[in-house]
């Protein structure tokens, strides 16, 4: 029997696979296609204090081996989430993490504080890295001083909830912001969010997305994400004992194992859910096969074992 369970700051996940925020709504969209209870955990779409309608259309465009999105944090808002979605998430039976976004530090604190009162929620994921709205948090996520400030403020209201900080790759050196998050009290790091990017309609000579830029996700970003996880693991997270939830283009078991070897404890699947919702369970089974083939009995035996 292979033990696939992992521990994210005291929250046990039956396996490392979780949904990447924003790709799985609030869990009801995939009901017929994927038994979410088979996953290790569930990360919701971003919640802000007030509802947001999001950006104009077009919001997504496919690129080679990836896609750009600029949804603009469209969401139902905190109160509707607490009233309508939290009861359903409670029935999921797997740890639920709520992604939190905002404009000002007070917004984050207010939402995180309210979520700390909910039994349905085990942790929050601090979105300080959305590239798609001017005030979507990325101004916090790309400056180490700001990272420290916002993580400290939210840390103070996370008494029960685990605090996961989602890092932006749109920085010169991701270990700097990672270190700031850890020093400010992050329980775990999730990495990476999307890369700010652009696609152009060459006939009209205009950006395709209404927002002009979007976040690049999918297989195209995986090698960069793996590298960033490796750097943060070896230079910050390992010594601090802070687990990493790795993500960026995971589509097959092979991809997931790369992240594990690079130092990720959790694994989030995002863009691939759009294509093959059930494929995430294939990734889980593929990891077990790999462990069996290499004579391991627990997934923990391979995390961060990259030979360099």
């Amino acid at each position, binding site marked *: 029997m292979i033990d696939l369970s992992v521990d994210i700051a005291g929250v046990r996940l039956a396996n490392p696979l979780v949904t990447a925020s924003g790709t799985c*709504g609030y869990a009801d*969209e995939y009901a017929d296609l994927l038994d979410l209870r088979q996953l290790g955990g569930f990360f919701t779409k971003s919640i802000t204090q007030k509802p947001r309608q999001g950006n104009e*259309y077009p919001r*997504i*465009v496919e690129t080679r081996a990836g896609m750009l999105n600029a949804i603009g944090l469209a969401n139902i808002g905190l109160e509707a989430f607490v009233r309508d979605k939290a009861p359903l998430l409670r029935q999921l039976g797997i740890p639920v993490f709520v992604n939190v976004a905002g404009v000002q530090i007070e917004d984050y604190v207010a939402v995180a504080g309210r979520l700390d009162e909910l039994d349905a929620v085990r942790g929050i994921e601090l979105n300080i890295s959305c590239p798609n709205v001017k005030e979507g948090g990325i101004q916090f996520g790309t400056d180490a001083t700001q990272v420290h400030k916002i993580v400290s403020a939210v840390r103070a209201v996370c008494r029960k909830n685990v605090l996961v900080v989602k890092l932006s790759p749109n920085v010169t050196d991701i270990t700097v912001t990672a270190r700031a998050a850890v020093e400010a009290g992050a329980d775990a790091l999730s990495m990476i969010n999307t890369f700010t990017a652009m696609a152009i309609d060459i006939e009209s000579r205009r950006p395709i997305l209404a927002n002009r830029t979007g976040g690049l996700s999918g297989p195209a970003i995986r090698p960069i994400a793996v590298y960033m996880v490796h750097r943060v693991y070896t230079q910050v997270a390992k010594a601090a004992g802070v687990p990493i939830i790795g993500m960026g283009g995971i589509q*097959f*078991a092979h991809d997931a194992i790369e992240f594990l070897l690079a130092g990720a404890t959790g694994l989030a699947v995002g863009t691939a859910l*759009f294509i093959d919702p059930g494929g995430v369970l294939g990734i889980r089974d593929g990891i077990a*096969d790999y462990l069996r083939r290499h004579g391991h009995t627990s997934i923990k035996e391979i995390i961060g074992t990259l030979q360099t």
Partner: protein
Amino acid sequence: MAVPTTKSKGIFTAGVLANRPACADHFALLLRLAEFPPTQPGQFVNIRCGRVEPILKPTEFEWRPGSLPPPHQPETVGRQPLLRRPISLAGRRDLDDGVELEIIHRVVGVGTAWLAGLKAGEPVDILGPLGQGFRPVDRPLAAVVGGGSGIPPMLYLAEALAAAGKKVVAFAGARSGASLPLTIGAHDLPSQAGWPTLCTAEFAARGAATVITTDDGSLGFPGLVSQALQGWIERSSVAQGELAVYACGPNPMMQAVAGLCLPAGIPCQLSLERHMACGLGACQGCVCKVKDDSPQGWKYKLVCKDGPVFDVGEICW
């Protein structure tokens, strides 16, 4: 009858029965499945335009320490689209031991080109059925209006309306006669005056006379399909209380049809097209503005989940 699946939607592996060019730029793909949930005209499927089997199964090869990854790594497989391609159903037939689905699509890029290359017997991975289809209105006469790749879903709709006892008249517009995914000249020839005739095999088989329009005037009525619709409504003795209009096509066409039906009080449903990733309501990519009573007067709905078919009065253009 095949045992019906209990889920309202799912991922199914279909087998290709036939795949043929329907005109210069459309392909007609006939798929066979052991089972498929109930469908409505106007609903769509999201098709994975690539190999059905996961390209990389860890059990399929050995990772030899120190060796480079095998050449069938997903990144090295050449240009396959990442996302699925949403395409409306053009027809469905329930058989004793399975279901046949017809999909007629315009070849516009790598995904649809892959579909066009499928051969009989090959598998296709389809996710569906998705979205909310047309909701037939209680009017005895139905005009089904399709422009370009919006024509195929009208075949499925015409069949359902005819089966429900409605008299159906079809309007099909294309850039030129060569781009029209219909078989011309079954019984009659298309009318240049924009009069319905039994001129297409596909609609005639569903009991519907058709008005063909082309932008370049190479076939049928020279002009826009919306102009032909307008002319027919004005010239024929159609009592407007009897007519309902259903349409799918490019945005300008839909806007023109809306501009015709809304002021006249003709019930009208439009099937919209948007780029989308998941087709399930999760990615939130395929928004359209619909009227509501908020201060700003509109809100976003999702074409994949709330649509693709909307009532003409809902849509903010």
